[in-house]
């Protein structure tokens, strides 16, 4: 008996030790960004990365004012893309879930494959397309381009979450007289809400961190996105390390905040992924 409780305790503490190590590994980069972003130009060069030394807001301030515009630019395209992809992705997923036919399976397979194709190969036609419809070098152009790549992702992720909804629940709503839109709004959205949040966060972070698409689709300096602007801090002639740390921190703050606020839904969504239970 005694031995048993010891093993149980050891197991439990081992779990926490591993969790702490993993958490620390994840936290170290954020910590380094904050600590070094708060150093002076000399301080960041003379002290080790993980040890705080001089303390000044000057780097944060200069970078902050420079990045403010790009961050707003990023928000302007990231939120619409994440919201639209999640919403319409969920709608598509509902349709795929509801109607099983040869055509549907084929379309769904194409969508799944499409999400794995590297988007880089489509960039040249994409630029031509945006130019010809007159949305090149604009937020609309970015939204359009990202929707092409992330609507299928939204549909794919949402169909994984919808698969755990019991079919009889949807059928009973139909018997109760509800049409597709009512079922989607009153049954599917509430029941798959954690999944929608997860999809939303996933797409938001993916689009926020995307460097290549905004780089080629945006040419005006004042329309640059946060991640593209961040690149300018790794200069060709020499790098101001405190500035680049501060820039990296500030440009990741928006997804970080959203993740902290909605994180619990994200985790619930992941749990549903793994166990097949209702989120």
């Amino acid at each position: 008996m005694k031995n048993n409780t010891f093993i149980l305790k050891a197991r439990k503490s081992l779990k926490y030790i591993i969790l702490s190590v993993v958490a620390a590994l994840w936290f170290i980069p954020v910590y380094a960004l904050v600590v070094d972003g708060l150093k002076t130009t000399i301080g960041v060069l003379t002290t080790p990365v993980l040890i705080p030394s001089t303390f000044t807001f000057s780097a944060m301030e200069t970078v902050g004012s420079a990045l403010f515009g790009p961050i707003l630019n990023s928000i302007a395209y990231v939120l619409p893309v994440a919201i639209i992809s999640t919403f319409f992705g969920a709608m598509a997923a509902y349709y795929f879930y509801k109607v099983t036919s040869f055509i549907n399976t084929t379309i769904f397979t194409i969508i799944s494959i499409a999400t794995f194709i590297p988007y880089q190969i489509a960039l040249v036609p994409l630029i031509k397309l945006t130019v010809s419809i007159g949305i090149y070098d604009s937020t609309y152009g970015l939204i359009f381009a990202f929707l092409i790549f992330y609507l299928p992702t939204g549909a794919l992720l949402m169909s994984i979450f919808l698969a755990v909804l019991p079919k009889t629940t949807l059928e009973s709503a139909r018997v109760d007289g509800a049409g597709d839109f009512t079922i989607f709004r009153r049954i599917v959205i509430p029941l798959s809400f954690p999944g929608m949040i997860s999809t939303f966060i996933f797409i938001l972070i993916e689009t926020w961190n995307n460097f290549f698409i905004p780089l080629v689709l945006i040419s005006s300096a004042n329309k640059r996105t946060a991640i593209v602007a961040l690149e300018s801090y790794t200069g060709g002639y020499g790098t101001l390390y405190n500035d680049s740390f501060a820039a990296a921190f500030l440009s990741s703050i928006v997804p970080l905040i959203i993740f902290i606020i909605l994180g619990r839904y994200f985790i619930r969504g992941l749990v549903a992924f793994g166990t097949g239970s209702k989120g």
Partner: protein
Amino acid sequence: MVKIKLEGIEKIFGKKSNPFYALKDISFEIKSSSFFGILGASGAGKTTLMRIIAGLETPSAGKVYFDNRIVSADGKDIVPVEERNVGMVFQNWALYPHLSNYENIAFPLKVLHWSSADIRARIVELSDILGIKEILDKRPGQTSGGQQQRVALARALSKNPSLLLLDEPFSNLDANTKNDARSLVINIQKKLGVTTVIVSHDPSDIFSLAEEVAVISSGKLIQTGTPSDLYDRPLNIKVATTLGEMNLINGYIELKSGIMNLELTGISKIILKSDYGKEQSKAVKIGIRPEDLALTTEGKDLKATEEADTSSKGEWIKLGELKTDVSNYSQGSFLVSTIYGVNKSRLNIISREAIPSGKSVTIYARRDRIKIFDGETGDYIPILEKALLA
């Protein structure tokens, strides 16, 4: 209320090259305001049939009429499920887990744009009848199985459907709750007069509720009629065993100039007078339900025991002496299992008392309840109905 008519319903699943016939040429009628049962073993196609009536499934061929209106025909739904004004209780009740019980019941009414005052009045009325007032604010997950079932029933009834469909509604309830639920369902059906269809594999659901029943096996309709009709005069062995337990004994029948020899292989031979007509001799299966058998111990005559007094008229035929095996308790009486023949087959008998294993007992059967089925096709042969003891 609505009258349902099915005409040549067929349902095929799977690929064209390898079709699976879930339902084959099913036609019957359900009278308006009646309580109709669909009985069959699992996999027989009864739920598919109900889903076709509801409109959740489209028949591959055949027509479904609601009164005189065609609602689906030959692979097409003409009236979609949401416009058929059907209420349905699913086997797992399929309540909306994110809504309170109140909102669950209100859902069909909200879809119909009822005012919230009307919805409240309707829910108060229904929850009074169904006794679910206290749990209206709770969610389905916080209520017991019996209560969830009543909520599902209230939801199905809230919009005043012209047809109520019950898909194995009692299979997830324990025995006591089951009886409460059955009496509630039958009372409410009588009160509202709504045409009701129940699908079940459990004959007791059918006997307690349905006025008429259709027995389905392997996607085919075998027989329709009142439950007691089917119980007493089943068309074949399948119907007989679906409606309740029946001992099936291999045997042989020989009819010659008004005298019938009935051999129950391994048990006994009976000689009867019969004017059934044509002379014949063939292998048969003899079906006797456990309650139509009686037993006495120590060679006593049946007339001297209690058993004979309680059973209704009709003659008892002595079948022979058999050895008992086990006695199972089942709801107030015992099911005594006896062993006969070279294959050690079982003959189950309802008895007032448990009999120890290995005891020798005398078996009697009610003459008018012995059923003869064709040995090959399994069809019922009414040969014994006019037979008398020789």
